């Protein structure tokens, strides 16, 4: 058991799972048919990534658990995702911008992790990276479409930006254990990720003429398992069957 790496893998998996779960809420409710398919397609990829990372976490832990145990039988305080990924789906602008922030992050994250000295992690990151490139192309195109079009769309994008911006620094939060993993070449250097992310996102902000909000609550807590109120409801819904009928196969 390598507790630091295990916790880190949970952070990766939990982030993908919560993003995927939120996107799945769009299923059957998208703004039009092609987008309905696209949203659930990204959801499907992200849940697949979660499963890969949970699988590696299980292997690292050496315990007799399954990826489903990790997804369905942990409570909110055991989840390690940043708060951003658990936020409600909101409107299409909110979903799109949240996705964009996470896609840019994932792009640089998986590029770095594909060089991890932990081979299973490097392999999984390479696989996820191929899909994340498509996710980013799509979310970025929609950010531009929405920001540079009608007044209503611009207004909604700016509102989403105001609501989400102060959740983004938490993506780069690290603790002592993560710094050590980075030193050992197992995970990414998050300060480098942050500078790539900031550069790329600020290009989009100026292209889309978005105004950076001045102040807000700086989200934090995910690394310690202290989440928003939203996560509990998400898990109550997601874990319902496993909790109501314990020990069953499905």
């Amino acid at each position, binding site marked *: 058991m390598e507790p630091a790496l295990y916790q880190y893998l949970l952070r990766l998996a939990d982030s993908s799972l919560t993003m995927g779960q939120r996107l799945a809420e769009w299923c059957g409710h998208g703004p039009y048919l092609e987008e309905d398919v696209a949203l659930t397609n990204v959801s499907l990829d992200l849940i697949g990534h979660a499963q890969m990372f949970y699988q590696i976490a299980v292997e690292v832990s050496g315990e007799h658990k399954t990826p489903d145990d990790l997804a369905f039988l942990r409570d909110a305080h055991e989840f390690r995702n940043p708060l951003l990924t658990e936020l409600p789906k909101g409107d299409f602008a909110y979903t799109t911008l949240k996705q964009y922030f996470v896609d840019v992050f994932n792009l640089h994250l998986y590029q770095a992790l594909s060089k991890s000295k932990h081979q299973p992690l490097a392999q999984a990151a390479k696989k996820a990276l191929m899909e994340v490139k498509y996710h980013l192309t799509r979310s970025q195109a929609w950010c531009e479409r929405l920001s540079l079009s009608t007044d209503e769309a611009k207004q909604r994008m700016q509102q989403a930006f105001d609501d989400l911006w102060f959740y983004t620094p938490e993506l780069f939060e690290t603790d002592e254990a993560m710094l050590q993993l980075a030193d050992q070449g197992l995970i990414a250097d998050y300060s480098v990720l942050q500078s790539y992310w900031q550069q790329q996102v600020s290009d989009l902000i100026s292209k889309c003429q978005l105004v950076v909000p001045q102040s807000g609550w700086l989200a934090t807590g995910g690394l310690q398992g202290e989440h928003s109120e939203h996560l509990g409801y998400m898990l109550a819904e997601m874990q319902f069957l496993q909790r109501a009928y314990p020990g*069953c196969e*499905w």
Partner: protein
Amino acid sequence: MYSQGLTDAKGGDEPAELLAEFQAKIDREEKIEPRDWMPEAYRKTLIRQMSQHAHSEIVGQLPEGNWVTRAPSLKRKMILLAKIQDEAGHGLYIYSATETLGVTRDQLNDELLTGKAKYSSIFNYPTLSWADIGAVGWLVDGAAIMNQVPLCRTSYGPYSRSMIRICKEESFHQRQGYEIMTVLARGSKEQKDMAQRALNRFWWPSLMMFGPSDKDSKHSEQSMKWKIKRFTNDELRQKFIDATVPQAEHLGLTVPDPELKWNEQTGHYDHGEIDWNEFVNVIKGNGPCNKERMQARIKAHEEGAWVREAAQQYHANKKSEAA
């Protein structure tokens, strides 16, 4: 809008030689293609049937989507998401095929949202437990396949070709639904009860998916002549029952029809009478979920309006920049 090869004539005014040639072509098993001449009634029948089919795929996303966020494992969640995506994809192919008959997807969508067009009555039933997702795959997709396999040979080329692709995916769906039922039937007592309740609720509505009985079906005869349909509603329903009853027995579940009995002489199962009042009621809009389904589609359409407008505006801006 595409309208070549079509005449505006209503049935009766169309030249007898064209009608005869059209029927001869169908009798020779040649496909009718979008540019070919076709009787107005043939075109209308196809638009009605194909758009109902497409609408059913779209509305059908809702009862299954109801369990996506509660699917009991990561694998089940992914399979269900992929399946619902397939359904949306089927809707897309069939809308596109319908557009070759000279209507637009927007028109068809309006007809759905204003209640003018119908969709399969099965989707007006709720999915109350996880086992319902199994039952929908097994029974609803199973019934759909019975209807759709003959449609691969339907006389209208674009419809036939889209059905060939759709049937491949549907048979996957049917098998995964049955697999869900298998796991539940072999699981705990509570899981088996869940499976039985799902069968109880979905059995009769699935039989209704084949439409009214032959003696009451107003579209059947002409559609058979035009080879849009290849089998009657009752023939297909019987095929479905014959195929499905042994599957239920294999699961150890009981089909909720006390009159169901194997008939040695006919080589088919005899079955009880369908509650046609219920059928007519659900079609008229008085099923358990008709209102919710329509409200969900209308809400998605209305809430998506600003997104569609923004996309159009953006492309118009790009075009004028380029000009």
